């Protein structure tokens, strides 16, 4: 890949100071995101998958500066946005937008749909009043809403229509990059397909770049070019779509893939069963974060954290024994 990536995240950290359990105790630290790095080329879609609490949403919000990062760099088109002052960041927001999971809480109940979609234009002072009004009509058409619905309030729309309003708002400033945070998880299956198709169509037409955050592997496989799997704040595997689904290499990725119930292969017999739950991110296990649930864990995994290494072109994995496991899987 020769061109400079549109988004480049280097060693991003988001640590939260938690309240002291008692007066004299030190403040526990929650490592929500711990040393995450990735890059996204213009016009591509990177999927960030993982289970709840793995830090995928926090990563997405941190790289838009909607959550304060505690370390690392986020280069957007070459500019480190974490270093920008507030006013410069405000201008930068034209280029990067977000779509949230819950279309019920992501729209202000006291604003009409038209006002919501116009708000980015008003805020950033784009065009004259007439131009903004025309742009809102254009956006409504683009996402498949009727322009006579502008005067309606969010509660008068269905979930799928609300998500369309959110998408229109995100597109208003013609951004280059959109963080899609579980954009279809809260929707019914029939509506999920409508919204996924819309996101794909818009990406193709407008040459958008997405960071697509989801826990749903089927959705991620459908829309993403590249996929990073997160576990307890760190990326454990990163590869392009085909490589990850055809040849998953981290034990966690394999377990995740085999746990998804599927219509065609109800493979409860061949499923990799993980014991226990995801550990508490305040008291993370030492060594490899996954060793407490890993069926292949050995002594080394308990003490030494594996680094994310690119041991095959484009396929990054953080596991001491990925090569041995590959060999075993081939047998």
């Amino acid at each position, binding site marked *: 890949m020769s061109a400079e990536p549109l988004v480049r995240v280097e060693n991003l950290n988001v640590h939260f100071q938690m309240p002291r359990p008692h007066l004299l105790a030190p403040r526990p630290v929650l490592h929500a995101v711990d040393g995450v790095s990735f890059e996204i080329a213009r016009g591509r879609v990177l999927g960030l998958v993982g289970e709840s609490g793995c830090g995928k949403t926090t990563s997405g919000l941190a790289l838009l500066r909607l959550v304060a990062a505690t370390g690392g760099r986020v280069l957007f088109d070459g500019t480190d946005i974490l270093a920008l002052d507030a006013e410069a960041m405000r201008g930068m927001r034209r280029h990067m937008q977000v779509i949230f999971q819950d279309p019920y*809480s992501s*729209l202000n*109940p006291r604003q*009409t749909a038209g006002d919501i979609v116009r708000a980015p234009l008003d805020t950033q002072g784009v065009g004259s009043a007439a131009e903004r009004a025309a742009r809102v009509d254009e956006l409504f058409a683009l996402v498949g809403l*009727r322009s006579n619905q502008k005067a*309606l309030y969010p*509660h008068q729309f269905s979930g799928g229509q609300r998500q369309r309003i959110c998408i229109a708002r995100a597109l208003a*400033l013609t951004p280059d990059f959109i963080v899609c945070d579980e954009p279809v998880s809260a929707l019914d299956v029939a509506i999920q397909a409508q919204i996924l198709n819309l996101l794909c169509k818009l990406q193709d037409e407008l040459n958008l770049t997405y960071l697509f955050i989801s826990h749903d592997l089927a959705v991620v496989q459908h829309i993403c070019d590249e996929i990073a799997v997160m576990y307890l704040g760190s990326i454990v595997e990163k590869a392009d779509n085909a490589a990850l689904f055809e040849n998953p290499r981290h034990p966690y990725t394999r377990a995740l893939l085999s746990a998804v119930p599927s219509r065609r292969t109800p493979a409860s017999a061949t499923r990799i069963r993980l014991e226990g739950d995801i550990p508490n991110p305040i008291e993370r296990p030492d060594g490899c974060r996954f060793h407490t649930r890993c069926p292949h864990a050995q002594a080394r995994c308990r003490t030494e954290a594996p680094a994310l290494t690119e041991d095959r072109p484009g396929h990054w994995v953080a596991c001491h024994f990925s090569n041995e496991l590959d060999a075993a899987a081939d047998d």
Partner: protein
Amino acid sequence: MSEAQEPTVPPVRFDDPADVPEVRWRVTAAMFYGNKAAVLGIAVLAAILLVGLFGPLLLQADPFAIVGAPLTAPGELRPLGTDYLGRDVLAGMIHGTRPTLIVALSATAFTVVIGLSVGAVAGFYGGRIDNLLMRITEFFQVLPPLVFAMVIVAIMGAHFMTVIIAIGVTTWTNLARLTRAEFLKIKEREFVLADRAIGVRDSRLILRVLLPNALPPLIIAVTLQTGLTIIYEAALSFLGLTDPDIMTWGKMIGLSRDFFFDAWWSVTFPGLAILLTTLCIALIGDGLNDAFNPRLRGR
């Protein structure tokens, strides 16, 4: 920007729910006027205001003048009777309307401005600012408000303005805490994040996004607060800490309190006036709240 995709139209068209766009202020107004209690509240409050404005011109009597025997029961000459000094209760009520309303509304406005600002800033920014503002709020809360108000009046003198300031300064804490709690809750909602993502400035977020969503409980608190300020004023009057030259409803109650069993009228009528005013404000607040809430429309 290309046209929208071809909408998929089923071969046979059945019901298509038509969405009727609504004109906002008209719907809001219609909603408000549809609320009979709120309209009644407006009507009665308007009447009270008219009495406050023009009453003293029509009944040009000195409310402090002794016009008859003390504790005269309501009758033909004195429709509401006289108090323990023989002052006309009706004259006191009418001449007391304007000062009472001015004190109540000004002190409430004072409370609202301080309470909302402190609560909004503390809730929105959190962290150290929140900590500092909340400690200050607690300082004001632990002082007994009446005693504190007395101190202020004692230092600054018993003028009309000092009474307003004294009441305002001591009663803003409840509103500040309530505002802060609402802001903390609403701040977490994703639409606030979405607005930050488009670059909305903090001041606009606070005033135009968070505040409207925090309003329902605040409006109720403010209407109650208005009633409370009238009572506070009464308490200060009772202690003789208000301007002695101005008659208010609170002062009438405060002064005549001991004569309730001998002359119920001297206390009951000003009391009813306070109750009625507070009730009207509460009804109007309730109506406004419903009218501005888009969710309740079309029901």
